[in-house]
């Protein structure tokens, strides 16, 4: 069996979400706020500027929003990996008839399942392909 440090992987996953999510969220909000109407450019700037700025802005704002979804997807994907290895660990403990470890792992697995559910619930997740 591959020696996956499930606890460390979960901590690293939570750390990834803490490190990436706020930045993704901030840039997404900021990109959303960069809308400029033709009026704001003035009459001479309006036609030339608005035609090129608006579609580019929309595109980048969508990119920023997709980055948030992508981070959520990475988080959920990693939590799913954590759950998987925890299940494997639990199976091993049960086979070894290690009751103490089995109980501990069952509790941790319950947490993993809850965390994964929280990470996926109501979220449009980016892919993990």
């Amino acid at each position, binding site marked *: 069996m591959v020696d996956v440090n499930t606890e460390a992987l979960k901590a690293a996953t939570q750390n990834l979400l803490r490190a990436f999510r706020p930045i993704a969220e901030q840039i997404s909000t900021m990109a959303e706020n960069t809308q400029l109407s033709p009026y704001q450019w003035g009459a001479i700037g309006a036609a*030339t500027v608005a035609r090129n700025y608006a579609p580019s802005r929309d595109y980048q704002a969508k990119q920023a929003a997709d980055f948030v979804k992508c981070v959520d997807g990475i988080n959920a994907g990693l939590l799913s990996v954590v759950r998987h290895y925890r299940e494997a660990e639990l199976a091993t403990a049960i086979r070894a008839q290690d009751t103490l470890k089995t109980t501990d792992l069952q509790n941790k697995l319950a947490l993993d399942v809850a965390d994964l559910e929280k990470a996926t619930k109501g979220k449009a*997740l980016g892919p993990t392909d």
Partner: protein
Amino acid sequence: MAGEEAFTGAVAGGTTIGAMKLLGTYGPKWAATLAKIELAGTLAKPAAGAAAIWLLAQPGDDQAITAAFNDWRTINTKLTYLRIQEWGKTIQAVQAAWPEGEDRKAFDRFMGIVFQEVQQLESAAARMADAVQDAQSEIHKIVNNAGLIVDSLLGIIIASEIVQLIGKQMMATGVPPVVAQGATLVAAAKATQESSGLLLMGATVNAIAGATVAVILSMGNLTALMGADNQFPLPQANLDSDGTDGKTDFDDIVRKSATRSPGEGWSYT
């Protein structure tokens, strides 16, 4: 002369951008000055034309444009920080806890793609910021150039009016040499009005056309930032799949490789 405080104010600031700011501040008074001198002859039309351009080029909300520039710049900075300061150590922590297997390799590949997207968004944000700033400064140039033309035309109109007034007073004295000198002054002042008007009108057209082209150029290449190769992958939410539906993701490979690569240690079920 009514409205002259606007003109005096403009000249006091120098025929520079500073003067334009004064003209901007004294907008209505300046307009009133133009209205008062509508009988000043050929100069009035180019002055009104330049004033119209000045007005049309005024950004409706310059602060909003500056704010948008700042936002793009900040997005760029934040992504640079994420990429340089946070990315490496965060991914390394995941990798340290997760020995390399088929699933880990899939994760590494995936994060490689996301990393590229982050870099692309980072540089796109920088180019958006640059384009907004360039366009804004070109629009400012149009406003300033048109304003300077109006400023100069007003100066010529007022000066020639004054000279004509003096010339007419000299002619009214009835003293022959003085009358002749007065007539010369009036003629010269009128000629100045007409020739300067044409020259300055030409300068206005050039300045405006040049600046407008620059605005188009500074925004024109933004469309290149939109492309299919520049996209975070679309959401699929396929975490529930087991990888057998053709939508493989890095958490699926764990399950698939349990049978596919037992040599790697995925032998438990």
